[in-house]
């Protein structure tokens, strides 16, 4: 894939369209839908590892969610702490602002974080807390940024929450700091959360092509580096349409060009690296990227050979949060795995178009309907494997379908060239496990004929 020229670039899918007012489909009552906007906002901001994240609300939101995501940190761990104002009924009546203020003070005093993010929840939004005012007043008083994140669960889906978190970054963080003079400026990675350490693979790759990461938004990020994100030369939106608005806005405010890309699959990885170098307008860098990607691709295809043999023609059903679907499809295709069903319940129209570009005609779109719907597709399409997130994992197990976890709880990094190799191995591994045979055959005495006759 050749990098797009700027004029084409503007007219193409890569971010020319500003997200619509409501880019994400509304959840439907009576279904086992995914997370809320609060969850989405947290997901985006929690990987700012050295900041404190305080949930303003009753115990529900924090008590059920703290420290349960796989975004890894290479150092600070403050983001792991579950801070909550834990509002009780009297706070609901008399207001929780005092409690919030005291909580902020306590955290600032005891943990000295570079910044505190304060999340509203359904309850605090409904009782009309003036969180912005409390945060502002606190920030002035204690001298560190206190950032309100107004993304209560009821405003909509997880994707919307991602977006609202992006808005908070734009409004309160980006542009408030300056990089140290000797900092090598390069690319902001937007929407990559370092699940299972994928960020580290990506960074390694970029570094070996001589491309610096300016700010990580937000995988394994430090608060400070985000404050200077406006100095980057290029923004890459890593398969997350929800944060496209952020890139778009940074383009108009700071003139930073952006593109959408992914690191799942060799092709997408190569494309992304080349696009970075191209947008940096650096010939030398482009050449370096070409050399690197050629070398890596060659090595990869060598290493992939045995797995491709085993995986060719295998059929998979993919059910992710939507945003990741199209990019994972590319990766699977390169391995010879055919995607016969794909979940689109959280995808935007653009996502669906991208998916359509990448799958064959007989792929089934699974719009909604939870576990039973997915299973139906697996069965009808005779899929060999299901690739989905944790909440669907145990359903797959019940149905004895080989499974790979692709969401937040996974422990394997699948990004970049090495990631693709790991994905190939993992697929092979999962398909080959002896347990599927064992599970599929009934107890010996339940068989009509003894096993050796079969």
């Amino acid at each position: 894939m050749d990098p797009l020229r700027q004029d084409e670039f503007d007219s193409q899918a890569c971010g020319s369209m500003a997200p619509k007012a409501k880019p994400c489909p509304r959840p439907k009552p009576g279904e086992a839908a995914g997370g809320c906007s609060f969850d989405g906002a947290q997901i985006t901001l929690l990987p700012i590892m050295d900041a404190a994240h305080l949930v303003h609300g009753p115990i529900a939101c924090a008590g059920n969610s703290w420290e349960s995501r796989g975004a890894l940190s290479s150092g600070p761990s403050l983001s792991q702490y579950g801070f909550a104002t834990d509002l009780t009924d009297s706070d609901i009546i008399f207001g929780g602002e005092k409690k919030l203020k005291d909580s902020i003070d306590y955290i600032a005093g005891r943990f000295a974080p570079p910044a505190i993010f304060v999340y509203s929840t359904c309850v605090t939004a409904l009782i009309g807390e003036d969180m912005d005012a409390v945060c502002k007043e606190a920030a002035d008083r204690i001298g560190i940024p206190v950032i309100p994140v107004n993304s209560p669960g009821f405003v909509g889906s997880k994707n919307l929450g991602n977006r609202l978190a992006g808005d908070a970054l734009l409004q309160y963080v980006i542009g408030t700091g300056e990089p140290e003079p000797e900092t090598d400026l390069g690319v902001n990675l937007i929407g990559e959360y370092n699940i299972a350490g994928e960020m580290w693979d990506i960074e390694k790759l970029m570094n070996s092509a001589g491309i610096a990461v300016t700010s990580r938004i937000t995988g394994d990020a430090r608060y400070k580096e985000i404050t200077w994100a406006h100095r980057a030369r290029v923004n890459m939106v890593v398969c997350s349409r929800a944060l496209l608005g952020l890139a778009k806005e940074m383009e108009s405010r700071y003139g930073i060009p952006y593109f959408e890309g992914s690191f799942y699959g060799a092709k997408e990885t190569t494309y992304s690296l080349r696009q970075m170098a191209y947008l940096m307008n650096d010939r030398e860098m482009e050449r370096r990227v070409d050399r690197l990607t050629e070398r890596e691709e060659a090595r990869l295809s060598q290493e992939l050979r045995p797995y491709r043999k085993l995986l060719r023609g295998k059929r998979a059903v993919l059910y992710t949060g939507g945003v990741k679907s199209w990019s994972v499809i590319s990766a699977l295709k390169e391995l010879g795995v055919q995607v016969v069903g794909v979940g689109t319940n959280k995808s935007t129209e653009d996502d669906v178009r991208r998916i359509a570009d990448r799958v064959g005609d007989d792929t089934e779109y699974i719009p909604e309907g939870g576990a039973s719907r997915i299973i139906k597709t697996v069965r009808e399409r005779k899929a060999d494997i299901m690739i989905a997130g944790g909440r669907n994992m145990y359903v797959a197990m019940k149905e004895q379908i080989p499974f790979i976890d692709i969401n937040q709880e996974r422990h394997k990094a699948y990004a970049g060239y090495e990631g693709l190799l790991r994905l190939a191995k993992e697929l092979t591994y999962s398909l080959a496990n002896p347990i599927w045979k064992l599970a599929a055959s009934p107890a010996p005495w339940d068989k009509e004929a003894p096993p050796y006759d079969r």
Partner: protein
Amino acid sequence: MSRDELNIKDNTSLFKEERYVQQRENKKQFEAPCSEKETAEALAYSKSAEYMEKNFSRQNVVINPHKACQPLGSVMAALGFEKTLPFVHGSQGCNAYFRSHLSRHFKEPTPSVSTSMTEDAAVFGGMNNLIDGLENSVALYKPEMVAICTTCMAEVIGDDLNSFIGNARIKGVISEEYPVAYCNTPSFVGSHITGYDAMIKGILSYLYTRSGIESKPGSGAESGEKLNVMLGFEPYTGNFAELRKILGAFDTKYTLLGDHSGNYDSPATGEYEYYYGGTKLADVPQAANALATLSLQKYTLKKTQEYISGTWNQQLAALSTPLGIKGTDTLLATISELTGLPIPAVLTEERGRVVDALMDSHPYLHGKRVALVGDPDLLIGLIGFCLETGMEPVHIICSNGDVDFNEVKFKDEAEALLAASPYGTEATVHVGKDLWHMRSLLLNDKVDLAIGSSHLKFAAKDAEVPLVRVGFPIFDRHHMHRYPIIGYQGTLNLLSLIVNTILQQLDDHNSGFNFELVR
């Protein structure tokens, strides 16, 4: 392909490779971190007594909570009934959390839906969401009963479940007879255990009232000699099996009120069904005629107990989680008393075997200082178990105490229990505190062992104390919930878990002359 050929590394091993370590080092220049000295000082300070005092005077922020909210408990309660769909009225996020939370603990799917309320619902009320939700979910998941609980959002805007459900019937979305139980569970009140209680009471009272039966305890052909048994917010499916074994040995008839073990321990058949097992709906009104009710989590099931002894006029015995020999003895004595049946010889024999095991292990347990975190009833059981083995409870934290049971509060009972034993003299019971408090306690006044849920692992690691995972949630170990911890068999499991953790610790820390074969 074999593991060697594949050699897939997960994040624990992959990122220890030199190249990644180097990369992280390089990154430090962008971090503007504190100096190592500052970091070390801050860490040391956080371990000091001075900080502990400050920490304990903390009023307004919870750090690392050890409780979940009411509706989470309600979802678990609803799953205890046959073909019942838990239905969460509120915005959708909470439900997603409940489902992952429970699934991560039990490693099983959790069927539960929500009304997905949004902004317009916040303004106009959630009635349409509830009605649409009922229509959709009944069509999709074909439950035989829907059990609705609220979240804080629905509570704040003051949605009236009863009239909404009524309207759904009027609109013909569900028939007049279709059972829909409900309870109110704002998450700014109580915790997962009070939510569990609310839903159990909601279901029992709903099914009983609509049946038109009038309770006559000890009457009725089927139910007159039966015992009702409730386990409460029970994170161990193994405990259900153990209890069945015990009741089976007594040869008594019984009804479990709220049995989610089927849902959370279903066999691999190759086909996923939404509903597995659970208390039969028809058994609930009959339970009003049972001989008596035995509750195994007296603090958790407070409202349900009141309901049963009040409305059903039933004799009620309420114990805390029956852990340890004495805890189990009490359980057996109570069953025997309620049913009039003698204690079965097999159980006496089993008791003997477990006492024997406790004797074998006692040298390693005696005088071991332990920290405990959990829900009230579990803690009462654990304290009892520790005291009978000669372990010394030192720090006890119960985030979601203090639930009072008639006149006795959890804290009072725990303290009385501790005061009655020479091994309990050092203990302090902290109610309403969180795991960050526990961290201070562990760092300032060291113990040999911590017992609690997975969430405790961070504090335990900081303090270099081995953690035995007991309670809820256990996210980072497999199959713990499949083994009982109640009854004599459960006592043996708990004992093995604890003593072997201690022995492992001995081996890990010894490599010289005392790295021995026999212990």
